[in-house]
């Protein structure tokens, strides 16, 4: 039969185990452990597990190739980028003056709907790659493209228009967010939103990102029958979503293995 005063309520013993118990409670518990067989057995078991876990902290070295890869990446002048994204940029802007490779690709998410592809789809969803947007290099790329405006909104509109996409962007200057849009990230200086138009099944994503204070931002949202994940990974924004009739779009400058891994999760 259990005694009322027993510490089989694990909290006390756990706190003691972690050295987070105040002096008074600690001495009370220690005294109790000397007399109570149940609790001292339990303590022994809990303590043994924690020690076993601690011992399992293998100090295995990271594989040498991993260290090398990281060192190489940070020693280069340019940020790490996936080659195929840059090819997409070039193909979309063919005819334009050549854009130096040294500038990080500009990415704007372009989401295509089933209509865009001209046929309904179910089940297997291919993914298309969009352009990668890195706000820090935004202005440089704009200049190279011959865009005079410094306004990210206008720049994006320009890019959308030249990519042949009919995307509705807000024109009102007092609000960056169109009606019906879902704000996914907002801070003092930045706002990111997703705009859905369910009638013609078009979806657009527009992100303005400034200096990123927190290192992470992630939100999962549902809009009607569409699930959407927005996240940040290695400094690039990406969006994945899944819906029976909507193409899954991946954007972002991710290592290829991550990209494939992400895509696989959605197909």
């Amino acid at each position: 039969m259990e005694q009322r005063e027993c510490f089989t309520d694990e909290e006390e013993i756990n706190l003691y185990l972690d050295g987070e118990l105040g002096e008074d409670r600690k001495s009370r518990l220690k005294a109790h452990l000397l007399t109570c067989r149940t609790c001292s057995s339990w303590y022994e078991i809990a303590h043994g597990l924690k020690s076993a876990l601690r011992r399992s902290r293998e100090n295995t070295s990271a594989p040498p190739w991993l260290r090398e890869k990281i060192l190489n990446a940070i020693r280069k002048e340019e940020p790490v980028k996936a080659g195929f994204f840059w090819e997409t940029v070039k193909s979309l802007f063919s005819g334009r003056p050549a854009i130096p490779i040294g500038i990080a690709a500009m990415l704007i998410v372009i989401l295509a709907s089933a209509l865009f592809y001209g046929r309904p789809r179910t089940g297997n969803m291919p993914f298309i790659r969009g352009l990668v947007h890195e706000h820090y290099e935004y202005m440089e790329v704009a200049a190279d493209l011959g865009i005079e405006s410094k306004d990210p909104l206008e720049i994006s509109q320009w890019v959308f228009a030249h990519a042949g996409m009919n995307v509705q962007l807000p024109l009102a200057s007092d609000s960056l967010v169109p009606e019906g849009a879902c704000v996914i990230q907002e801070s003092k200086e930045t706002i990111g939103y997703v705009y859905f138009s369910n009638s013609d099944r078009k979806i657009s994503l527009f992100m303005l990102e400034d200096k990123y204070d927190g290192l992470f931002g992630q939100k999962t949202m549902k809009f009607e029958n569409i699930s959407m994940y927005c996240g940040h990974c290695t400094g690039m924004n990406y969006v994945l979503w899944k819906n029976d009739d909507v193409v899954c779009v991946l954007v972002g400058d991710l290592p290829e293995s991550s990209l494939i891994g992400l895509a696989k999760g959605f197909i």
Partner: protein
Amino acid sequence: MKAAAQKKERFEKEALIHLDVIFSAASKMTGNRMEAEDLVQETLLRAFKFFDKFETGTNCKAWLFKIMTNLYINRYNRQKSLPKAISYDEVEDYYLYRRLNTADYIANSDYNAGWIYANLLDDDVRNLLQELPEDFRIMVVLCDIQGFSYEEVARITGVKMGTVKSRLFRARRKLQKGLYEWARMNGYLSKGIPHGAA
């Protein structure tokens, strides 16, 4: 140009020295080597990218852990497409725990905890950890394996300290349950010499 070179040097000196520890924790969190390698790579590259935000002299290891843990959280959250269903696990666990804590565990004189722990291999630990849901597993890796305090874990994961504690304690309970099963399956609970004993 000089600033860039300095940044790289500083990074190698302050951050890259933690590569092995980060890798070790990543393998425990993800449970598989390939994913760990991927996670570590992303972590370090991201850390380098944001290295200007890091204050020299402060705890770089904790900062790197914060990046890695959050990248990992992002990853497994992404895989969830459904809202969290109500889990009856908790209720079941409670009763199992109470039962284990009294009759079976303690009264079972053959449950030689010391012997069991001594025979627990690293792979066994990894397997036991994989049985935990990710947000519990993270707590065990950070607190019990890596030795961060509750407060440090709260900062790393962005989770309230109260939640850190409750998740950690529940995780330990689940591990004990898993360990009990492991012990039973490997013959540590039957009378006589356990299987595999020297």
